[in-house]
């Protein structure tokens, strides 16, 4: 029987190199989802704090739906739904054509949609924390609406929203584990393969869990650094 250290080593007998590839996939997915989710979340928050009732209703519908659905179900809806929709679309032009939906892209869409609906709530409460006088001050010195948003409101908004967004980042990092269910080779799937081949399930799933923990610890160091940087800008104002 091989020892634990051989199983966890790098190289032909060990599984660490395979699992490391999974780590790269997990990180790539989370990092690729983040900007999409932030951008959509910000737009939804803008819609939800607008004076126009129809725009507010549209934004609220989005959050209600995607916060109410389980992440795994959203992922399957995107994965299989996109497959069927694209298939129908392709068959309009080429009756024999088939499409394969990329697991990475559907994971990115599903996680992005979930992330953005939570992020919009964080942005919304940050918007509410900014006094109206800030906008009026901006208009009074002759800034346009867009300039006020960009130069006056946004810098304060980011500072207020940062803790909430950091929390969402950690949730996103954990949610990426779900894509292993649609066949993307992330940490958990690689660990699962290793567990099935070597019959050391506890070892490998424990290893995977520890890797997630390390990623979370590294992220919280990064988040602290960002928070310090943003806080310093405020102090020197």
């Amino acid at each position, binding site marked *: 029987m091989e020892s634990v250290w051989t199983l966890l080593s790098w190289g032909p007998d060990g599984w660490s190199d395979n699992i490391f590839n999974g780590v790269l996939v997990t990180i790539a997915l989370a990092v690729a989802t983040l900007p999409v989710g932030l951008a959509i979340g910000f737009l939804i928050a803008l*819609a939800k704090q*607008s*004076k*126009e*009732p*129809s*725009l*507010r*209703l*549209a934004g609220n*519908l989005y959050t*209600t*739906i995607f*916060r*109410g*659905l*389980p*992440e*795994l*179900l959203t992922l*399957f*809806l995107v994965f*299989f*739904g996109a497959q*069927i929709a694209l298939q129908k679309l392709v068959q309009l032009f080429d009756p024999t054509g088939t499409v394969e939906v990329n697991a990475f892209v559907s994971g990115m869409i599903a996680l992005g949609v979930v992330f953005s609906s939570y992020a919009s709530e964080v942005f919304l409460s940050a918007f509410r924390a900014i006094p109206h006088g800030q906008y009026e001050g901006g208009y009074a010195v002759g800034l346009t609406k867009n300039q006020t948003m960009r130069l006056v409101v946004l810098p304060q908004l980011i500072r207020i929203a940062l803790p909430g967004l950091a929390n969402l980042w*950690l949730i996103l990092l*954990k*949610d*990426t*584990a*779900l894509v*292993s*269910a649609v066949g993307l080779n992330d940490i*958990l799937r690689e*660990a*699962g393969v290793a*567990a099935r081949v070597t*019959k*050391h*399930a*506890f*070892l490998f*799933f*424990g290893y*995977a*869990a*520890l890797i*997630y*923990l390390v990623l*979370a*610890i590294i992220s919280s160091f990064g988040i602290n650094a960002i928070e310090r940087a943003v806080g310093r800008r405020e102090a020197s104002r």
Partner: protein
Amino acid sequence: MSAVDITAVEKPPEPPRGWTKARITGHVLLALWSLLGLGLVWFLATSWNPELIQKYAPGYFSGIAITLKLVAISCVVGALLSIPLAYMRMSKNTILSAIAYAYVYFFRGTPLLAQTFLIYYGLGSFRPQLEMVGLWSFFREAFNCAVFAFALNTAAYQAEILRGAIESVPRGQWEGAASLGLHKLQTLRRIILPQALIVALRPYGNEVILMIKGSAIVAIITVYDLMGITRLTYSRTFDFQAYIWAAIFYLVMVEVLRHAIEWIEQRITRHLRR
């Protein structure tokens, strides 16, 4: 000037609402949403198949029952576990609080799916030992493993909620109760908890909602909850409405719970409103 003049002065009429950019965007987006909704209704109506419904509807209802059972058991067990955890986390003994902190950090820092796998597949590695203590028949069932994993997970979150709520009650409340001669347990039960639970209600509600949503992952370890039934139905029929129905059921469950919590919060904070 007479008083009549004042009543004659009316408020100027509201300026007509023009078609601003925001209003146009809002209407376009709402139109898109309603198109999507109509498309869904149309899809469900055209693919309505009484035989299929008759065959799979009972499965869906038992799936919902299993989901609710799973969430209910693990939330109650988690709540019981969270009490000693929160106590350890708040205790002045550094070893106790470090253990509780490590527990909470582990369960909040790793994906629920990884924890479930660790218990469902991982405990199989300890089969001889588990058989020796007679626990193997418990852990052989996927449902029991799921309940076990979920209870441990939610205990970590609930301990943090409980701790946050208890610490949100000002220290003066403890001191006031102590000066009235109440001992610690009495203070906790009669003074602190009633105030803390108001703070904790919303996070608790969110936790239950997260558990309902998180419970979908047990489908991966072959528990036939709502999601598991959905996957089974889809793999047999290749009919996409299987997923649409699951989405509707989950949305209804979550929304009902959310509104119920809002209603309870309204009720129990009546004395705070002026």
